[in-house]
């Protein structure tokens, strides 16, 4: 049954067993690092990290109490909230670096492509790992910022690993990839024409950790402790990029050489509320969201 109201507290006052659903990508390095550093165990949390391919598998598990917390990108959470899913953000996830041209994600075209800047994308096809999501919103904001017709950009869905081959074979005109695929794109000579996360909002909060309303009301203490631990983890990760690169080797299969070259995201301890508001407005403007959800109710 999926009636997980509380975190299953271990008998005899042992540590709370907490299961968190994450995606095995760069962005969640802080939680792995924090677990390793004992930031969770010292708050009496016995943390288990379970990876899934995407948010589709994580949200139901959190809502049904199979997981206590989950990791999801901001747009997905806005979408869920707009459908009245009982979700609540408990911690920041990761942010763009805020530096144009030096972000952990980017919009690429082939070296010899006639496309010089985002506005040239009108009428062209861009690969996104997930349609109707944060990539689409961000790329469109790049186009708009560049003075182009964002509505005329076509998107097609391709998983990150397939994007570069498709670009090189000329099946798509541009791709939007994150690290480590950005490294591969650079290595293959692709040309970066925008850092769309940076274009969308300053210091955009790309993803966040969340829980269910049920757990929040049933065990606010646990949620508070988790939030504390996350804050410490984020801060630590932001300050220790080398340890981040090491911990990446434990849960991903990114080759060591690539790990060294990765551009890391920013991990500020707090959610950039303003960027979430901006993102929500953009999504409403693009028609991704029917109406703007109650952001105050979503964010902590």
């Amino acid at each position, binding site marked *: 049954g*999926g009636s997980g109201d509380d975190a299953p507290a271990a008998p005899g006052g042992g540590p709370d067993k907490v299961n968190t659903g994450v995606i095995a990508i760069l962005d969640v390095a802080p939680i792995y690092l924090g677990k390793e550093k004992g930031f969770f165990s010292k708050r009496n949390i016995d943390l288990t990290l379970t990876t899934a391919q995407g*948010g*589709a598998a994580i*949200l*139901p598990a959190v*809502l*049904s109490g199979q997981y206590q917390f989950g990791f999801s990108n901001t747009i*997905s959470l806005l*979408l*869920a909230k*707009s*459908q*009245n*899913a*009982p979700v609540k953000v408990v911690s920041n996830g990761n942010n763009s670096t805020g530096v144009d041209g030096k972000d952990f994600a980017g919009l690429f075209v082939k070296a010899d492509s006639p496309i010089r800047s985002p506005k040239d994308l009108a009428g062209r096809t861009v690969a996104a790992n*997930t*349609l*109707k*999501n944060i990539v689409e919103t961000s790329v469109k904001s790049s186009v708009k910022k560049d003075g182009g017709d964002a509505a005329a950009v*076509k*998107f*097609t*869905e*391709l*998983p990150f*690993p*397939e994007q570069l*081959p*498709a670009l090189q*074979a000329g*099946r*798509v005109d541009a791709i939007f990839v994150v690290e480590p695929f950005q490294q591969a794109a650079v290595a293959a000579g692709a040309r970066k024409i925008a850092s769309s996360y940076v274009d969308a909002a300053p210091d955009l909060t790309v993803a966040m950790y969340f829980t269910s309303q049920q757990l929040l009301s049933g065990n606010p203490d646990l949620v508070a402790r988790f939030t504390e631990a996350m804050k410490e983890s984020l801060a630590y990760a932001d300050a220790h990029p080398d340890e981040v690169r090491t911990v990446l080797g434990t849960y991903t299969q990114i080759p060591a050489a690539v790990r060294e070259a990765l551009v890391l995201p920013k991990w500020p301890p707090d959610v950039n509320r303003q960027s979430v508001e901006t993102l929500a407005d953009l999504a409403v403007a693009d028609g991704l969201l029917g109406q703007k959800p109650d952001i105050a109710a979503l964010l902590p």
Partner: protein
Amino acid sequence: MTLLRRTLLALGLPVLLVAVWWWASAGSTDFYRPALSTILAAFADTWTWDRVRADVLPSLARLAAGYLLALTGGVALGVLIGGNRHVRAFLEPLLEFLRAIPPPVLVPVFILLSGVGDRTKVLVIAFGCVWPILLNTVEGVRGRDEVLSDTCRTYRIGGGLRLWHLLLRSASPRIVTGARQALAIALIVMVISEMIAADNGLGFAVLQFQRGFQIPAMWSGVLLLGLIGVLLAWGFRWAERRMLGWYYGQRAGRREW
């Protein structure tokens, strides 16, 4: 069996199950398991004619193309393999290898080889649903009656006549079994193929609903899939009865009381 009785039998269990579902889910507050009434309301809102034209019809067109490709390819290859044990020994391990590879990881290879367009999706559907047809054809051809084989050999019935009148016809009950299986699988693979590199289609729509957390709409898509499955199955049964008239005649000529 009268028409009335047949209709009752065909619809009795579904109606019962729907009733149970309705009753059990009434007033559900579970985000992922909404009440059936909510789903049905979403169904009416979601599957408007525009939507059907934009998403369902392209899907069905790809489904038809992929299925027919699988049917012809599977039967052709099956006859080849079933008719010659050397060919079978040569190809079987390779085919078993390919068969065990999950479409989601295979799709990238297809994209690499044939692009992101409809052609790839049709190929994925064909590749996904060809196996029951192929395996059943092989076994049907292998299991043909020996006396009939001998009859063909002595009367020197070869080439196309043998292919049609011996191999295909004697394998036809099994080919039909495989084709029936493949139909449902084609529908499933159609959905899977639309989860990657798609911009329209029924599977695409269901996936978008899921990702957009429009859960009642998502379930209505699943419901629609099931309904399409039922319609296709009825069509299939109609065609099957026509093609295998001799087979059912031979078996029903001896009907009990």
